[in-house]
């Protein structure tokens, strides 16, 4: 009986903890959500906790009619759609080759790739090199450097190493060459891990702002997150100067304010991830535990 009571208290503590974490994790998103749907004037009064007080779609209207945002969405979508499958192919091809013990100079090549995880040239030389490849201010700067990732390669390779050897051997006896083995046999079997890597790569593309921010100057090459950074910077410099007063004055006449615009933009940038993510999370949890834990 004592044990049951102890268990009861313990589980009570567990659930309290879980609920607290749930609130801390989720509430910030909710806060943004309600501010974005609230009219600016009303938002200034603060104390918006659970629901929008004065519902307004004005901020969204402003965001979604802004051509800068649409250009940015287009750029981001394009790089995600083009960059992700290409990367998955390049990385998995390498993983396949390195998973073959009989590969000539296998250890050398593995070291060649793994070394880059531990040491790099740094930002400045990287920028210079990009410039000399004429990638600065080009859309390709979003695609080409991102085609290779050693960490993902290791995950895929580990998985491939776990596949039965007999598959290869019987295929070879049937006269298949390495390319055929790769594309027709191994690749289809690797789908769960490929989906995981693809997901991570896609999210990485969707979230990227730094390469657009630093390596491109053309406004037509700004990704969605980079535009969001610009909006954030404007807010931060604005709020240094005069703060609430200035914003209050400008907001009184409009249903939107820099603040609510910022919130709406944030929601627009986050929404795809949040929508897509629950469906894909079962893939990545499986993939992560499959591949990464073994490494």
């Amino acid at each position, binding site marked *: 009986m004592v044990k049951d009571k102890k268990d009861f208290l313990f*589980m009570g503590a567990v659930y309290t903890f879980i609920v607290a974490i749930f609130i801390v994790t989720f509430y*910030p998103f909710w806060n943004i959500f309600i501010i974005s749907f609230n009219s600016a004037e009303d938002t200034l009064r603060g104390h918006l906790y659970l629901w929008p007080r004065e519902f307004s779609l004005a901020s969204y209207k402003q965001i979604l009619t802004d051509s800068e945002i649409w250009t940015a969405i287009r750029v981001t979508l394009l790089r995600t759609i083009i960059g992700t499958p290409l990367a998955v192919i390049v990385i998995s091809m390498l993983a396949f080759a390195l998973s073959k013990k009989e590969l000539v100079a296998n250890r*050398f090549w593995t070291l060649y790739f793994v070394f880059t995880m531990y040491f790099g040239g740094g930002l400045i030389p990287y920028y210079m090199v990009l410039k000399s*490849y004429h990638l600065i201010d080009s859309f390709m700067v979003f695609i080409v450097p991102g085609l290779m990732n050693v960490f993902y390669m290791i995950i895929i390779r580990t998985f491939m190493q776990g596949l039965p050897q007999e598959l290869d051997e019987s295929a070879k006896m049937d006269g298949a060459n390495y390319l055929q083995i790769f594309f027709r046999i191994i690749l289809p079997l690797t789908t769960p891990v490929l989906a995981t890597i693809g997901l991570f790569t896609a999210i990485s593309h969707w979230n990227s702002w730094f390469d657009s921010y630093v390596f491109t100057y053309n406004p037509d090459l700004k990704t969605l997150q980079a535009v969001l950074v610009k909006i954030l910077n404007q807010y931060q410099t604005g709020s240094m100067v005069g703060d609430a007063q200035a914003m209050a004055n400008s907001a009184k006449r409009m249903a939107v304010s820099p603040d609510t615009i910022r919130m709406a933009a944030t929601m627009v940038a986050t929404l795809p991830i949040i929508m897509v*993510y629950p469906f894909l999370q079962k893939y990545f949890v499986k993939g992560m535990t499959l591949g990464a*834990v073994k490494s």
Partner: protein
Amino acid sequence: MNMQTKAHPEGSGALAVKRNRGGLLGRLKEQRLLYVLMLPAILLTLMFSYVPMFGLYMAFINYQPGGGTFFKQFFTTDFVGLQWFHYFFTNGDFVRIMRNTLAQSFLSLLFGFPMPIILALMINELRTGWFKRTFQTVSYMPHFISWVIAANIIITMLSSGGVVNNILTGLHIIDEPFQFMQKGPLFWWIIAFSNAWKDMGFNAIMYLAAIAAINPELYEVAKVDGASRLKQMLHITLPSIRPTIIILAILAVGGILNAGFDQQYLLQNNTVMEYSEVIDTYTYKYGLQNGMFSYGAAVGLFKSVVAFILVITVNQMAKKMEEQSLF
């Protein structure tokens, strides 16, 4: 076939022992398609990882923005040796930058390392069902948003008109809104909490996987012996994931110079710059924004070298510990 150029086994120590001439060329010919598969990755890594390493020569010269192409300057510009490193160590920024970097890393570790473990232990105690699944889903949501979005959220919540201040003033804990984002050292704590918030759910996955591998019989026996759930957690679950914890802790320490860039750059403002600036934001500011390319390269090189030594040392320790814990 351009197979030949790639066939040079520089790492010849790593090649298999049987290596008569006919055999090697024969095997290469057999595997030429494997090499074809590797080709794109090899080229990409060469172009985007190794060539920039060569570019580190910039740290030892006086790079002139207008003075010819990047590669040509290797031959034409004057060698200035360790001048830039000397400048970095003596110009007064070094102590501040290192202090900020290490403080933020340390605090992030302090808060962000135990949280995923505790979270995993708690999640493990939940009964499987929709609640557990929903909670897990929500817990790794912050990991998948960009720091841009996260920074937006954090700044909004901590602003004078934001929720936190609303609550504090509403409960009369303080009279006026507290400017969280403008108090220097507080920035370190904000970074630490943000990092934990963003990654604890995701990092818990690693531990949950380790927990899933625990032999259920251990729990059966404990239950028969009358152990409470708390005792089971402390005496079975926790010790069983100890190897995982130790390895991850060691690896985390190895990454201590990587305090981050995104978070600091996006969350900082001029008021807190003295406390927020870390090595990577410093390199960006001086190297790219202010055009001191060689200086930026030098600082970057310093960080790369120290981080490299740290990580290798720490990885060796992790390997040794793994062997020990297997016994």
